[in-house]
């Protein structure tokens, strides 16, 4: 992708995303970690816009920033006496070492492979219209299965979070 604006946007988004993902790692307060996570999600949405995936960018903002982040905040607020600190277990050092090794392998593969990419002039047609057509023709069976999965997750999480009093009330009724 050529162009001064694209280059500037990429580097700003990369800095925003990686710095706030690092903030999730280093911040001691769990609330601050969630706020850093939201900033990371917004940065990823910006990348999706940069990659001309308009529908996915909107879905990212609505689902991740709007729903999952609020869900995580609610889960923190619903566990009030649990410790708020975002500390590490004794596995922190080996986990960091593993992550660094994995990053080294990934970076080697990414930069050593001769990727066959499309030319500058041929941007593939990847708009919301094409996505909707693909979802409802080729991928219609996984699409329906996803709705079953979401229903099962909805019912399951309601069942898991009921209190004993609510279960007793339902048993009487």
């Amino acid at each position, binding site marked *: 992708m*050529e162009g001064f604006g694209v280059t500037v946007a*990429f580097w700003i988004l990369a800095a925003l*995303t*990686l710095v706030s993902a690092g903030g*999730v*790692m280093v911040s001691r307060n769990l609330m601050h970690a969630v706020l850093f996570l939201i900033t*990371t*999600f917004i940065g*990823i949405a910006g*990348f*999706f816009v940069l*990659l*001309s*995936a308009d*529908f*996915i960018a909107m879905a990212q903002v609505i*689902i*991740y920033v709007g729903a*999952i982040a609020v*869900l*995580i905040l*609610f*889960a923190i607020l*619903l*566990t009030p*006496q*649990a*410790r708020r*600190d*975002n500390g*590490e*277990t004794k*596995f922190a050092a080996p*986990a960091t070492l*593993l*992550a660094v090794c*994995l*990053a080294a392998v*990934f*970076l080697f593969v*990414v*930069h050593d492979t001769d*990727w*066959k*990419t*499309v030319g500058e002039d041929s941007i*593939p*047609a*990847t708009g919301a219209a094409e996505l909707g057509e*693909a*979802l409802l023709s080729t*991928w219609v069976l*996984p699409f329906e299965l996803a709705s079953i999965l*979401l229903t099962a*997750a*909805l019912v399951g*999480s309601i069942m*898991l*979070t009921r*209190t004993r009093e609510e279960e007793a009330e339902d048993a009487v009724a």
Partner: protein
Amino acid sequence: MSIGLEHFLTVGALLFSLGLAVSLSKRNAIGVLMGVELMLNAVNLTLIAFSRFSISERPISGQTFVVFVITVAAAEAAVALALAVSVFRNRETVDVDQINLLRS
């Protein structure tokens, strides 16, 4: 300097590694879940980058995959957080190194 596939893949790889470090090292179960979400986002970024740059018959397939990843991530987050709340009600903690009922 033009921005190519490698740049996006590099960001995705670094984000995935950070997410792995977070999810393996955090003590709070909600912190672990945040690491998993970071990893899923990194994978989504990589899929979209390939969908945009790869030579393919149907470039939209990458985005279709991302739609399903987001769906499963939403279901996973809902169930995992419900489990965290449920564990907290019974054990008064969500620290993954304190939840060791199965260890004799």
